[in-house]
């Protein structure tokens, strides 16, 4: 058999030793696939959780014009791209894709991300201290409307 000998001769290739390649591959996945990938092993999980540039890629994947460099620090300050994607961009895209009325319109990803940035900012603002003003309802969030079940 050729295989065992070849295995001995070739150095073992483990993707986990080459994080930059791994990240390049992960960058090309979509949100749900990333979620699945995060379940593979601890390393992948940590990478996906902590590497915000992965999520930045997903947010701007279909945006033709690369976002200005000023966006990154703002998003980082507000909570990071992962939060932006999971909290705003993804529900917005799914909501916009579902609605029949919306399918006829064409909103660029860019516009979606712009709006989601604004909503994200409002949400971050609400999470800042002082939520006691809202009658003690600490879970009040202006993004709740994105999470409500869609009226089918």
């Amino acid at each position, binding site marked *: 058999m050729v295989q065992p000998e070849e295995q001995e001769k070739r150095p073992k290739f483990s993707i986990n030793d080459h994080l930059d390649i791994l990240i390049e591959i992960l960058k090309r996945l979509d949100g749900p696939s990333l979620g699945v990938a995060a379940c593979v092993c601890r390393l992948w999980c940590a990478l996906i959780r902590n590497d915000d540039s992965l999520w930045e890629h997903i947010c701007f994947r279909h945006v033709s014009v690369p976002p200005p460099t000023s966006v990154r620090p*703002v998003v980082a300050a507000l909570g990071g791209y992962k939060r932006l994607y999971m909290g705003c961009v993804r529900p917005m895209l799914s909501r916009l894709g579902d609605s029949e009325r919306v399918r006829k319109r064409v909103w660029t990803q860019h516009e979606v991300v712009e709006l989601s940035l604004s909503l994200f900012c409002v949400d971050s603002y609400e999470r800042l201290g002082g939520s006691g003003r809202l009658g003690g309802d600490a879970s009040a969030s202006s993004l709740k409307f994105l999470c409500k079940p869609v009226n089918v």
Partner: protein
Amino acid sequence: MKRNHKATLEFGGGGSGYGVGGSGNSSSVVVKGECSTMSSAKAKMWGEEHEAGGMDELLGALGYKVRSSDMADVAQKLEELEMVMGTAQEDGISHLACDTVHYDPTDLYGWVQRMLTELNNSPNDPTEFFGNHQIPNIDFENQSPVFNDDSEYDLRAIPGMAAYPQIEPDSESSQKRVRSSSVGSDSIPVLPPSPSASNVSESTRPVVLDDSQEAGVRLVHTLMACAEAVQQNNLKLADALVKHVGVLATSQAGAMRKVATYFAQALARRIYRIYPDEALDSSFSDMLHMHFYESSPYLKFAHFTANQAILEAFATANRVHVIDFGLKQGMQWPALIQALALRSGGPPKFRLTGIGPPQPDNTDALQQVGWKLAQLAETIGVQFEFRGYVCNSLADLDPTHLETRPGEAVAVNSVLELHRTLARPGAVEKVLSTIKAIKPQIVTIVEQEANHNGLVFLDRFSEALHYYSSLFDSLEGSAAGLTPPSQDLIMSELYLGRQICNVVACEESERVERHETLAQWRTRMVSAGFDPVRLGSNAFKQASMLLALFAGGEGYRVEESNGCLMLGWHTRPLIATSAWKIPATES
């Protein structure tokens, strides 16, 4: 008029392509000319109507001389009579309230159907149903139904029940039962239960499906009648009617019930002169405001469209100053700060002056909000300065106190605040001249799109009823039938309920919810010397995207009207954003 409409339908087969005229006279002229296949007798009938000076000839045949133009009046008086009969409690005529069955004379088709089905089902005592009516001679030996009709009126499909309940007083109240199948022309969308479902499930009250529609119409009529009684200072009648409204409202479901309840409460306050205490804890009203912000798109729409206008006006400025006429929780400003941070060319220095009412407990609510905004601005990297300005009314604003600095681009923003100044004479003019003295680059105004400031109470009431019905409907639509209803929904309704109370129950300087339409505000701004600024397509796109995000948001519509944007529910615009600037020559 309905009669004419029905009559022209009759001729529809014979004539060819003539329009159905709006007024009796014009349609009769057209019919006379074109319809040659009509029998001469019918032609003469129309001709008579036209020649007899507009006398209604159907009533004329019975011996009444009523002008066609007065028919609407007659109908209204009949309705009022019915109303009074329904609530009659006095001796001697109290039987009118429970024992009579009233027929709707416009509903000929339904009446004929009912006659025939009733005859089929109770051949032994036909007189019980028809009273004075002549019963046509029908062969009772053959018990098979005269016609098979699968419409919702075929209540014989309900097993084990008489098709129509016997004549007995309604167990709920002494309200008379009205055999009417035609729903009134009110535009309030009451969602009726689907007939087939109701037929099967409602085994005890088969007529409910019709009743709730009828009751909805009755409810609106009773509310209007009550308001009219209040206007004529007939408080006794108004009191009786308001109680009746309460009873009728329980038969409704959803938005209609809530709106009716709030309006009834407000009317009751007006009748008994228990005016609501406006000086409520403003943190409570802020909380209600927040829930309204979260549960519906109106305030978000307002903020996003106003921010877009401000952004465009600030495109090249290095130092910007925004004056917010109603800071509340400052929810409008994070998005603007973020947009300024991402502006090409970097963020400008951002100064915000927030105006708010004095707090009863002396806490500095404005400063707290300012502090939060400062935190946010710092994390994003925008230089931020905040100043709070406390005043009871916008008319007390002094331009010198606002500390405008040279080289600063100023924006004035008013979201649902300006209409309060209409409560005192001269106040709005003073505010507008203060704004002009500040010399802003842009003034953004968002107001409710309704006229709740008319001189006649009844007109205001009717406008408000339609407006808040649409508003409550939209909230209901967005809630998507979640049970139990979310706290947001309840609080938002309470927020609106307080507005309703103010519009209906208060007067003079206490009535601050003096909403006016965009057209009225436009006139006011133009005559004060402002030029309109068109809100760009960016704002429109953003607004429509925002609406698409709302569950149940299929009913929301963004409209553009002469450069201003309006958000509405179905065909009814409910809130309008407009932007203004001072013409260049004046500065």
